[in-house]
């Protein structure tokens, strides 16, 4: 029998908010789907769209971006920059056949551990329904024989 599909999610979390919220969720023993590999960044404005595409190309089934609420970014503008990039990147991703539910942006403050749990569980559920993205296989194997 093939192994059941476990979505792999790469989560880019801002150091000042969502990363702390995920930490809080952990220390308050809130259980949530263990499918995410979390990458801490100093600000959501640091997330280069290249990182996101790289994650998909290397086998992520979904990418979650977590940043500070509007007005709360430690570097003032970072999360707005992130939002602008995200909007256009989302359209590009859809042109590349990456479904909407696979790429998500959430504003989660340091105190919202519960929110991390809700978002993560919801995202894993939706991606489980979509199935694997399978880009890694496609990207690597097509290079040999088209």
């Amino acid at each position, binding site marked *: 029998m093939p192994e059941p599909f476990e979505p792999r999610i790469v989560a880019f979390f801002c150091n000042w908010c969502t990363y702390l919220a995920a930490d809080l969720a952990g220390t308050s023993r809130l259980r949530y789907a263990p499918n995410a590999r979390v990458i801490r960044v100093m600000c959501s404005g640091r997330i*280069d*769209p*290249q990182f*996101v*595409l*790289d994650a*998909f*190309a290397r086998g992520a089934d979904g990418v979650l971006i977590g940043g500070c609420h*509007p007005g709360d970014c430690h570097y003032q503008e970072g999360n*707005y*920059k992130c*939002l*602008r*990039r995200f*909007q*256009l*990147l989302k*359209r*590009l991703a859809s*042109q*590349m*056949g*990456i479904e909407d539910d696979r790429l998500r942006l959430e504003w989660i403050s340091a105190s919202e551990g519960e929110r991390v749990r809700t978002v993560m569980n919801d995202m894993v559920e939706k991606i489980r329904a979509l199935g694997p*993205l*399978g*880009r890694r296989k*496609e*990207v690597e194997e*097509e*290079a040999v024989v*088209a």
Partner: protein
Amino acid sequence: MKPKVAFYWCASCGGCEEAVIDLAEKVLDVVAAVDIVFWPVALDFKTKDVEAMADGSIVATFLNGAIRNSEQEEMAHLLRRKTQVLLAFGACAQLGGIPGLGNLWNRDTIFNEVYRDSPALVNPDGVFPVTEHRDNGHTLRLPKFFDTVLTLDQVVDVDYYLPGCPPTPNIIEQAIGALLSGKLPPKGSVLAPDVALCEECSRRDTKPEKLALEAFHRPSEVLIDESKCILAQGVPCLGAATRSGCGAQCVEGNMPCTGCFGPTSRVRDAGAKSLSAIASMAASNDEAEIERILAGIPDPAGMFYRYSLPASRLRRKRQEAV
């Protein structure tokens, strides 16, 4: 004995061949300095002539075009074997180029459009290309068309890259000069300056340090002021993330840079980089307003991957989604 040189084309428009002729009278110097042993567009040599050559006997092959069918793939392998220095000539060979946008589709959807659905088509018998056809005891063969357009270096090892759609005469001259003198940079180099086009653009001083744009326009929608940075006027110009060396010809012609020279060495995914820079310029913090501003860029894949989709991180649209 003069060094043996070959030119070949794969999936390309022919513009790269023109570019060689664009060397004008200098092309005569080139012809005098080398022995052209294969150049299908201009000289009558056949594949079997190449097959008969000793391996490694061609000093340099300039190969333009992407690889999108089995014949091109075979020729790339054959020429690689016969050649000491293989140069990916032009955007299609280097990055996939305009044909690379075919990676938003696949063989079936492209064939259906071209041989069945196109309004300009007359094909009453519904003939589609096949790889083998028998008629009267004869067998005819056609190359296999791939689902995915590939860059040259996704098929064979490439020594150097000449960027551009097509490469400009100065770039070609310098490359030939370097080859003939043996003064070649490290293998894998792109033979053009490793700085962004904005650096050599005559409008550079009019590009503000920080840009905030309230709308994006296509070049056909506005009158572009010839004295000011094109991007600052709301027309996406990709000069900030594109390699220089072209002499800013498009900007000199009052048109934005569309990125044909590809990225500098510090960029992994040219399209994502340009997208990032340009999206950040939308002058709003409000979700709906940002959306309105960015609606001025209706086709991000076509704009940011115009020449580089096969070389991008994702390479193509997901097959199941085509």
